[in-house]
């Protein structure tokens, strides 16, 4: 029987639970400062929680990838034969890039609304998202322009809301 020596498997089985507990305890102590009083500690708390989430997701993905490769290669999970760590990274990126892109573009959109203004950001956001989803440049521009115009009409005549103009404009 093949010896179970995959480093990810070892990390998952031996270190995940203690790592989770350590993160949880640190998060608790950091956040306890900011639970009720005005504080600037919350970004650290959120960062820790997000890092933990990303770590867990990454571990799961690498494990799943190693399992899939192992199954494809007749039960012998040899890292070298499937491109090693770099190969696994490429496969995981190919699987997740749309979601990561969506989140990243959304985050940029939030920042842009605040600093650049609503309509310019909306146009850029819709265009970037359409391009991420492989819409060709001209239709992507049309989609972005169309939805920006629609939001302008909706905000002006229906909701009667003035959107943030942005700090830069």
């Amino acid at each position, binding site marked *: 029987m093949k010896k179970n020596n995959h480093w990810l498997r070892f990390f998952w089985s031996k270190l995940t639970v203690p790592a989770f507990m350590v993160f949880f305890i640190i998060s608790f102590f950091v956040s306890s400062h900011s639970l009720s009083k005005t504080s600037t*500690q*919350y970004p650290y708390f959120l960062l820790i929680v997000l890092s933990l989430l990303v770590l867990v997701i990454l571990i799961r993905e690498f494990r799943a990838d190693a399992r899939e490769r192992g199954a494809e290669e007749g039960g012998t999970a040899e890292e070298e034969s499937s491109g090693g760590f770099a190969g696994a990274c490429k496969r995981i990126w190919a699987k997740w890039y749309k979601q990561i892109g*969506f989140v990243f573009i959304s*985050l940029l959109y*939030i920042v842009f609304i605040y600093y650049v203004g609503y309509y310019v950001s909306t146009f850029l*956001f819709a265009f970037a998202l359409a391009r991420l989803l492989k*819409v060709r440049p001209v*239709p*992507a521009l049309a989609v972005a322009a169309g939805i*920006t115009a629609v939001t302008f009409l909706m905000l002006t005549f229906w909701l009667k809301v003035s959107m943030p103009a942005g700090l830069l404009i």
Partner: protein
Amino acid sequence: MELLQQLASAFLSLFSWQYLGLILLGTFVGVIVGALPGFASGNALAIMLPMTVVFEPAAALIFMSSLYMGSAYGGSITAILINTPGTPDATVTAIDGYPMARRGMADEAMGISLGASCLGGLLSILMVVLIIQPMSKFTLAFGPYEMFAVGIFGLSIIAVILGGDTVKGLAAAVLGMLFASMGADPAKGMARLTFGFIQLYDTIPFVPAVIGLFAFSEFMFMVDKEQVATDKLRAMDVGKVKNVWRGVVTAIKKPLAVLRASVIGFVVGVIPGMGMAVATFASYGIAKNTSKHPEDFGTGIPEGVIAAEGCNNAVVSGSLVPTFALGIPGSSTTAVMMAALMLHGVVPGPELMRNYGFTVYQVFGCLLLAVVIMFLIGLFLAKWLSKITIIPNNILVPIISVLIFLGAFACRQVFFDIGLMFFFGILGYAMRKQGYPTVPLLLGLIIGPTVESNMMRVLRM
């Protein structure tokens, strides 16, 4: 007699341009959204929720209810034509609807679906009108003890039924209640779990949470989905009025099948947490078991389509009973409906009929009109509706993504809410990816304050 007078007065009040326009718009948008594969009615309601902020409570509820009714029918269009249900609730429709379409009877199947949906909707509205007043009189006797118990019961039953995995469902519900405890303590007014954000002092606002949990997380799944059978739909020439009408007549000629499906839909709809999918499967199973030719089910027979479609529109009215009378929404869609009520300052529960009885009757009247409009849309626009579903996901996602960000901001006009929506979107996606249901979380968020305040009252007694 008094009930009839109230009903008639509420119904007649709907004949204004504003209400009729909203019912027409809501039903039309609902049918289209219902027809789009992978786009559930709860998501559509979540996206449209902030758009109702400028309406008075009755108008907002009328718009949302029409949308709900329309989406229950819309799901059947793609289920019949390309075997891809627009909503999970229309899965059963495809079992007999698609084989009919393959035999060249797509129009008839769409007509049967339309006829059964409309008749099921009408019958269930009659049933709900009969039940809502006695039920609300009964619930008026509820005190803090009962309200606390009902809240916990509703939350746990929904968590267990919707969750699939009991532990995951309950965990989601408890997380929702934890979020609900953010903000000012109801007894002492002290800030809790606000992380220093003054915007959280009034607890987590529903609208960004609803949009994030349902719409944003759904889009994270949608970015990866390929368009289904677009070419097949484009090539189809369906929706001839004469053939669709023939299907409607077929449904009318089977009143017992329609009645059975409607009663099952209504009864299942009243039970919190069961939802349309359970109701349609139950209705189809019972229709098959009581048929003289059960072996024909699945081969493309009208009875199969009637069993599914007569039932799912009946669930719409049924599911509004616990939402209105007890304040316990039974599905993601009614949870959003409840958030809409609360957004407009209408608190569902025992006091609803006393304080907003007229508005509730207006909602049922609007469902009646929505059925009529749905019938006309289905009969005359079926051809065009089937083509609308061709819009590819990669065009749809950027357009609607902009609207969800806009919606998150528009309600309170606070920039913080956009970030909150983003947070709940990521959370919703992570939860769904790991098999945790998001509906119990939202319910915990909605029911949490009621449970807590009633518990505090009980403890002081």
